[in-house]
């Protein structure tokens, strides 16, 4: 029941067959078939990079958001042309030096339910900078079906792999945002109770910092690219479906009709191709154009010699929405009043177990604020729920959550001139 629009309404059933032979083809029925569920398996939700055990680095991506309790994890198969890549730049040139290329087999049934085999290949050098699924086999494993304990695989260097359903770690009062930035205190985490399909790698720093390109030792950047070789489209070539580094950044600043072009740009070309776009947007938001140089290329950077936490990588607990609200408004008090409500694991794969039943009560309220939430000028209500921080909204016409976020924030900023912005976090 997840991808809703997927299901077409029921004319077929309701109608009465007028014609003996044509049954549902009769006027009554003109039967719309149910739309097949749209495939969101390559739609990136979030990218994470944080410290694992023993100095390791955890790289996680989530896809196929909005899964409800009872749904299974979904990964596009290699047979269907699906490819997931986690790209690493370890010398600061925004060109991938390493790419973990992840593919999945078709579903198979075993005693624990439906699973897929996973293969992670590690490509380096020029091969890392392509949409190829090649490279040396780095790790192999099996997905974890819903309701099963995490199936964790290791390779001989004791790196770890997990792929399967997890609690969506992202938290945001999306509905309040879309209601016109009517943030509530406490807010309601839209993602509470919902699951995602997650791919998590934990690797030793040497695996990503070393390498033929000569890394800088402790600093690197990560981004995810999903692509599909859709030969049924006639074009025998792989197309990027989504790419993402930092949460939301691309989505906020890139107009909907240019999302495809953006997704198909390599980060190394981001500044040349997209800086002017970002500058224009920043100016329209009364933010500093200089931020463009910090936001591009769209890579989630981190330095293992410093504590992880957004903007140094991204931990599961990081409140990236508040951080971005604060960044854009310049107000340290900006907030959607939603905190992490997930229970994370202290061990790999870290992301919490998938939700199996009805959503929990709304998150506990932070301490009361002394000032009312920000009042936002009247504006069109938000878009239809891109429930993630990724760019997965594709080109579906101007409905980027983050555009709205940015616009809304701008509104807050205007109201807040003079330092009166309200929203104290109270903690």
């Amino acid at each position, binding site marked *: 029941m997840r991808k809703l629009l997927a299901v077409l309404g029921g004319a077929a059933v309701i109608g009465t067959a007028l014609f003996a032979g044509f049954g549902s083809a009769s006027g009554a029925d003109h039967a719309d078939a149910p739309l097949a569920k749209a495939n*969101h398996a390559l739609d990136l939700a979030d990218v994470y990079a944080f410290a694992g055990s023993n100095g390791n680095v955890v790289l996680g991506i989530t896809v196929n958001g909005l899964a409800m309790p009872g749904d299974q994890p979904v990964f596009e198969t290699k047979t269907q042309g699906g490819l997931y890549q986690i790209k690493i730049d370890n010398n600061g040139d925004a060109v991938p030096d390493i790419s973990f290329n992840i593919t999945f087999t078709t579903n198979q049934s075993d005693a624990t339910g439906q699973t897929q085999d996973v293969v992670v290949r590690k490509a380096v050098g020029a091969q890392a900078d392509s949409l190829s699924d090649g490279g040396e086999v780095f790790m192999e494993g099996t997905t974890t079906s819903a309701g099963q304990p995490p199936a964790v695989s290791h390779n001989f260097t004791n790196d770890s792999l997990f792929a399967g359903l997890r609690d969506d770690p992202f938290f945001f009062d999306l509905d309040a945002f879309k209601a016109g930035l009517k943030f509530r205190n406490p807010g309601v985490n839209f993602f509470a109770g919902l699951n995602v399909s997650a791919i998590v790698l934990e690797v030793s720093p040497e695996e990503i910092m070393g390498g033929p390109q000569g890394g800088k030792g402790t600093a690197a950047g990560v981004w995810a690219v999903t692509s599909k070789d859709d030969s049924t489209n006639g074009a025998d070539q792989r197309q990027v479906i989504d790419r993402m580094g930092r949460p939301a950044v691309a989505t906020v600043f890139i107009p909907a009709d240019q999302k495809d072009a953006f997704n198909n740009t390599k980060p190394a070309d981001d500044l040349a191709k997209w800086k002017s776009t970002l500058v224009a947007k920043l100016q329209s938001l009364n933010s500093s154009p200089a931020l463009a140089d910090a936001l591009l290329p769209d890579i989630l950077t981190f330095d293992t010699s410093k504590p992880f936490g957004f903007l140094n990588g991204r931990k599961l607990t990081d409140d990236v929405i508040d951080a971005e609200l604060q960044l854009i408004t310049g107000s340290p008090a900006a907030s959607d009043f939603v905190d992490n409500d997930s229970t994370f694991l202290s061990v790999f794969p870290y992301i919490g177990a998938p939700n199996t039943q009805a959503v929990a009560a709304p998150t506990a309220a932070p301490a009361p604020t002394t000032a009312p939430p920000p009042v936002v000028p009247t504006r069109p209500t938000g*878009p239809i729920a891109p429930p993630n921080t990724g760019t997965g909204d594709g080109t*579906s016409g101007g409905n980027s959550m983050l555009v709205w976020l940015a616009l809304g924030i701008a509104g807050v900023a205007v109201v807040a001139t003079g330092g009166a912005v309200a929203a104290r976090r109270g903690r």
Partner: protein
Amino acid sequence: MIIARSHIILATLTLPLVAIACGGGSSESTASPASSPGTVDRISATATADHLKRDGQLQFLETRSANDSLDVFSLTSIAIEHMQRARETGDVSELTLAESALKKSLEIRTNDNYEGVALLAAVSVTKHDFARGLDLAQQAIPQKPKEAYAYGALGDADMGLGRYDDADVAFEKVVTIQPDLSAFGRRALLFTVRGRLDEAEKSWRDAISRSEGDGVAEHAAWAYSQLANLEFAEGKIDDAGADYQRSLDIFPGYVHALAGIGRVAASKQDWPTAIDYYTRAINRIPLPEYVIALGDVYAASGDQTRAQQQFALIAAIEQLYAANGVNLDLQIGLYNADHDRDVASTVERAKNAYAVQPSVQAADVLAWVEFKSGDVPAAREAIDHALATGIQDPLVLFHAGMIYKVAHDNARAKQLLETVEQKSPRFSVLYASTAKQALDDLNAHAAAN
């Protein structure tokens, strides 16, 4: 290439359920002769697990909705689930629940609520309010012009309104954006109306091939039943029987598959089997067309008492549908004409229906009602509208043949009835023998002259 994010969903519905009596949700184990018991058990177990999962998800969404007055996602998702249940069970009260959720979602988010508007368009079309469906679809499309869903609803509304060229444009858009089961199914229905049956059949097979693995068993079952309907109309009775059975195997207890097997049996005058399957179908949900069909089968088998018992249900069913906002003007009009009931008032009703939704189906019903009322010129005018698209449905051709015969256009009547006899001689329990007799009369008349 884009992966469209279409999220939808929810609603807390405590609307009074106008229950159509009958066990909608349970998974009846309809053992299919063609399947091994093991296969059936596995399929039934899967269906049961699916029901449990969906019940749990609906509860999940209702809880979400109750806990967050701004939650549009859950309302949209709830509506979709009720729409799917309406498909699967035929219970029209599910549509009322879906509409209620959608209206609530549109109250929360008036603008930029594509899913709310597009789904409401689909619900309207399902209720046969095609004008409203058209209007809503046209409102939705500009919000997300690259999404297929609202184009589908638009084309469906066009079909109901007899705007076939517009439907063609809308459906091609759907096929381009999202070439899935729904897209090819719609294209098949349009080909059918236009009498392009080979293309229609191919489209159904395209639809079926794309239904694999989409996670909803009813989808493929629906497509197989639709293909079977087409094959039945083409006179390929055994092919139709096999595809109804496939549909039933995929989705045990599926109303349209059960009724289809009943229809095949009835065409072979196997009354016990026909009665058995039609009864199983309406025990699941008493869709009016199958209640009427069962009555007709009882009558054909000589059991007038049970036939009248079925026909007596029709008025109550119509009231129930009306209470849920579903318009059955065409269906009831055809039923009345076939059974010589309330002909005078039915003429007015059919005229009004045709004025509002001038589709091939409405024209055909009006023609048949006018024929029964004795207004031959009006019947002929209406049937010419019905035939204009090139439709090859044997019932329409039969209606046309009978009308041309009373209009003394014997050559045309003969041609039409010959087509029926050659291609689909067993097209109707009610009229197969009538058609043959009429053709014999025409041939005798021609010979005498």
